[in-house]
C-alpha cells in the first residue's frame, strides 16, 4: 500500500511566553499543540474543530511548515520533511497551499486579482510565457466562478465572497496535493457561505485534493469532511470518521460541543437538553493536570485529575481520549 499523503506523529508546538522575572525573564511554555498524531490520505478531507485557542490554526501552520514544530514529525508521502533543506522545502510547498479566514486581509491590496492568482505560477514555472500564464489564470478564474474580465481589478473592488474565490484560485492554480483551509467561510455572509462550501467540495473532487478543513462551525465541518478531529487546549480529544463522530460522539467534550450548536428548528432546539459545560476555557499557560477538559467536564472524577487519558480505539477508526468514554 502506498503511504498516506501526510503522516503527523506526536506533533508539539510550544511558544515560550514571558511570565515574570526581573533581571532574567521567566518563560512558561504555551502548549498550543501538544502531541497530535494523524494520517491524511490522498483525496481525503479531515475536519479540525474546537473552540478558539484550542490550537487548530497552529496545527495547520505546523503541518504547512510555516511554524517550526517543537518536536514530533511531519512526513510527506512517507519521507520526513527536513526544515533545513530550503530547496526541498520550496519544492514541497508547491504541493501544499493554504486558504485563510479573512479574504481581504490575505490578498495584497496593491496587486490585481490576475497578478495574485498568477504569482504561484510565476514562482514555480518561470518557463511559462505571459500569454500561457494569462490563459491559465483565466481558466482558474472561471473554475472558481469569477469572470476572467475582472483580471485587472484590485481586491477592494470585490465583495468578501469574491475575494475568498480569489484566495481559493491562488491556492489551487498549482494543482496542489494538500490545501489547508483555515476558517475559509467564517467571515462570509450566510448566503455566500454555501456557495464557497460547494466550490471547495467541487474543486476537491475535480483535483483529487486532500484538505485540512479548520473550523469552529460543526455543521459546516460535518458537511464537508470525511473524518473529523476534535481538539481542546492543544490535545486531541476524539478522532473519527464523520458519521461515527456525529451519530455517536464518545468524548464528553465532543458531546458538549454538539449540544451547544443551535439547530435551526424551533421544536428541536427547545426540546434539547440545556448546556452541559460550565465556565470558560482554562488558561492555556496553566492547563489542568491530567485530562485538560476535566474542569468543565460533567463526568470528571479523581482519576481525571491524576492521569491524562490515553487515546483509545473505541471502534473501527474512532479514537477517544477519555477515562469515562464507556459510560
Amino acid at each position: 500500500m502506498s503511504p498516506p499523503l501526510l503522516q503527523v506523529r506526536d506533533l508539539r508546538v510550544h511558544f515560550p511566553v514571558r511570565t515574570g522575572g526581573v533581571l532574567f525573564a521567566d518563560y512558561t511554555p504555551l502548549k498550543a499543540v501538544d502531541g497530535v498524531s494523524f494520517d491524511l490520505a490522498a483525496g481525503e478531507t479531515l475536519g479540525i474543530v474546537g473552540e478558539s485557542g484550542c490550537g487548530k490554526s497552529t496545527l495547520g501552520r505546523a503541518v504547512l511548515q510555516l511554524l517550526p514544530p517543537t518536536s514530533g514529525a511531519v512526513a510527506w508521502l512517507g519521507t520526513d520533511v527536513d526544515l533545513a533543506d530550503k530547496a526541498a522545502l520550496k519544492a514541497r510547498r508547491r504541493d501544499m497551499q493554504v486558504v485563510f479566514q479573512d479574504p481581504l486581509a490575505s490578498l495584497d491590496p496593491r496587486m490585481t486579482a490576475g497578478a495574485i492568482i498568477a504569482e504561484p505560477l510565476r514562482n514555480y514555472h518561470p518557463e511559462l510565457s505571459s500569454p500561457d500564464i494569462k490563459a491559465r489564470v483565466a481558466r482558474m478564474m472561471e473554475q472558481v466562478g469569477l469572470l476572467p474580465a475582472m483580471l485587472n481589478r484590485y481586491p477592494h473592488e470585490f465583495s468578501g465572497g469574491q475575494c475568498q474565490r480569489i484566495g481559493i484560485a491562488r491556492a489551487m492554480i498549482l494543482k496542489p496535493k494538500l490545501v489547508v483551509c483555515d476558517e475559509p467561510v467564517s467571515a462570509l455572509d450566510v448566503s455566500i457561505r454555501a456557495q464557497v462550501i460547494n466550490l471547495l467540495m467541487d474543486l476537491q473532487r475535480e483535483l483529487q485534493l486532500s484538505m485540512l478543513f479548520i473550523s469552529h462551525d460543526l455543521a459546516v465541518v460535518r458537511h464537508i469532511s470525511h473524518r473529523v478531529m476534535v481538539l481542546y487546549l492543544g490535545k486531541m480529544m476524539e478522532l473519527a470518521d464523520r458519521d461515527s463522530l456525529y451519530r455517536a460522539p464518545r468524548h464528553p467534550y465532543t458531546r458538549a460541543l454538539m449540544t451547544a450548536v443551535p439547530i435551526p428548528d424551533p421544536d428541536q432546539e427547545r426540546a434539547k437538553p440545556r448546556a452541559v459545560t460550565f465556565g470558560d476555557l482554562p488558561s492555556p499557560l496553566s492547563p489542568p493536570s491530567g485530562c485538560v477538559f476535566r474542569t468543565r467536564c460533567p463526568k470528571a472524577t479523581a482519576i481525571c485529575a491524576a492521569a491524562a487519558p490515553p487515546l483509545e480505539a473505541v471502534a473501527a477508526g474512532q479514537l477517544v481520549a477519555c477515562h469515562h468514554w464507556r459510560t
Partner: protein
Amino acid sequence: MAAMGLLAPNGRATGEVRFAGANLLTARESELNAIRGNTLAMVFQDPMTSLTPHMKVGRQLTEVLQRHRGLGKAAARDQAIAMLRRVQIPEPERRFVMYPHELSGGLRQRVMIAMALLCGPRLIIADEPTTALDVTVQAQILDLIRLARDETGTSIILITHDLGVVAGLADRVAVMYAGRIVETGEVRRIFKTPQHPYTQGLLACTPRLDDAATAALRTIPGQPPNLQRLPPGCAYHPRCPYVMDRCRTNRPALLPAAVGGMKACFLDDLHLKAAS
C-alpha cells in the same frame, strides 16, 4: 441603533419609534438619557469594545445605579455584586475590582448583560450578543438571556444572523433584506412554512448539524445588494428563483400572508407551496 439614538452623525432616522408612550426619534438628549440604560437597555456584540477599558467593571455597573436610581455608593455596590452573582459570575467580589481586559469573553458578555438588567428594563435590544463567543459559551449566555427574560418579564429584540439562535429564543421573527422587513411571523411558522423566497433561501443554504447529507448545499445566487445602488422593484429580485416581470419594477408591500404573519412578495402562497 436608530431607536437608541446612537446613529453615526451622518445617519438620519425618520418615522416613529414609540417606547412606553414616548417617541424616541424626536426625544431630547436628556429625555433619551433618562430612558437608555434604564428601562431600555442594550447588549452589544463585542463586549471588549463596548465596555470602557480604563474603568473597573464595578464602577461601570455602579455608575448606572447611581445615575438612574440615585443610589449611594455602598448600596450601588451591593446591588451590582448581587447582579453579577445573578448572571452566574463566579467570585463576583473579585471580578468587581477587575478591568474588562482581565475577564474572558464569556465573562465580559455576562457583565454586559448584568449592566443591562440592573435597572429592571422593560426592553433589551441585544445586537448579536453571542456572535463573538465560542459555541459552549454561547449556549451558556443564551441560557442566561432566556432565564433573565423569564424571571423579569422583559421584552427582548434579538438581532442575529444565526437561525439556530432565533429558533431557540424568539417568539416572533422579522426577516430583513436590504433595509426592509420582507417577512414576519410566529417563530414556528417562519421555520416550517417560510413564505418569502429569501427566508426559504436562507433556511435551505444553512448547513445543519443534524443533517448527514453531503450533496451540494442549496445556494442563494449572486451577492447581497449594494445599499447605495439598490435594484428597482423588489430588492431581492436579481437573486430570486421565482422572479416575475412586475418584481423588476414594483416593490411589493408588506401584507398579511394566508398562513399568518406578513410578507412582502407578489407570489401568492399557493404558488410558493407548489414551487418548493
